[in-house]
Each structure stands twice: as C-alpha cells, then as structure tokens.
C-alpha cells in the first residue's frame, strides 16, 4: 500500500523523529511506513491522519493491489 507520509511530513517541516515522538512509535516505524514496507494498524493510521489533519484516504492510497 502506497502512502503520502513522507510528502505530508515534509510539507509540515517535521523530521521523522518528531513525527515518531508525536504518535509514540519508534523512528524505524516511520522509516518503514515511508518506504511502504510496513502497513500500519487502523489506530496508527488514524493517529497519522489526525497529525496531518486529513482523512486516512489522503494519507494512505488504497489501490486494486490492496483488494479494494
């Protein structure tokens, strides 16, 4: 699943460590999320959407390959 975390984070001038601290995860989790290697839980996705103040669908780009 693709996502726009890197783009949205950069737009807000946040570092990976800062974003990680805000949503209480490790920096490695943010790195994995940005690389698209790790799909987060609904709760983490919601936290990210709240931080970026936009709907989950705008942070995570659901495609046919996700079966949606």
């Amino acid at each position, binding site marked *: 699943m693709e996502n726009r975390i890197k783009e949205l984070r950069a737009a807000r001038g946040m570092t990976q460590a800062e974003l990680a601290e805000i949503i209480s995860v*490790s920096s490695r989790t943010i790195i*994995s999320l940005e690389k698209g290697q790790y799909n*987060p839980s609904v709760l983490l996705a919601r936290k990210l959407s709240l931080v970026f103040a936009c709907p989950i669908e705008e942070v995570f780009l659901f495609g046919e390959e996700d079966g949606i």
Partner: protein
Amino acid sequence: MKKEILISVLGLAAGIILILLAMFVFTGSTTLNGVCYGFGAALLALSVGNLVGTSVKKAVETPETLKIQEIEEHDERNIRIRERAGWNTVRIFTPVLCFLTLASALIGVELYVTLAACGLVLLVAGLSIGSQIYYDKRL
C-alpha cells in the same frame, strides 16, 4: 522491577541450595548429583546475570531512556516483528526437534533421552494448540 529482583533472588537461592545439595547430600557421580550441579549452576548464572543487568539498568535510567524504552516496547511494528520471529522460530524448531527425537530413538541412545525429547515435542505441540485455542477465543 521489584518482581524481577524478587524472581532473581529466589533463583539465586534455589541455585545455591541445589549446588549445596550436590556437594553435601547427593555426593558421588550419580545422575542426581549431575542434575543438581547443572540446574544449580544454570540458575545461579541466570540470577546473577539478571541482578547485575537490573542494577546497571537502574544506574543509567533517566526519564528520557524510560520513555524510549516504553515506546520501543509498545511500538506496533516491534510487536509484529516479535510475533513473526517467534512464529518462525517455532516453525523451524519443531521439525528439527522431531528429527532429533526420531534420530535418538533410531541410534539407540538412552531411553530417558528419547523420552525427554518426546516430552518436548508434546509440550511444543500442546503449547501451540493451547495458544491457538486461546487466541482464537480472544481475537
């Protein structure tokens, strides 16, 4: 932390008792003597290691390191990694254990070794089935 220290102290005491039993009660080169020495030494080493580790951890602990530790422990990616690592270990270890059990029976080692290996296979299978039933009901 207190619970950890208590467990280590109990382990230390049990280890010392087992070694003393091996030295003064079950003397001679009997199986019981060896078992007492083996388990005693293992318990002693693990407990001392735990106590030293706990005291070092306490000495260098700051609110910042505690927060990082808390985050690392509850990080959902780390939890998933731990689960997958555990599952993979069991998946690889189970056939190895079965093979060793079969091999021990075929090459004619002492019966108690084969029985112990069989016990381990049954324990792993029991734990696996038990865990699946438990999580099937909970999740």
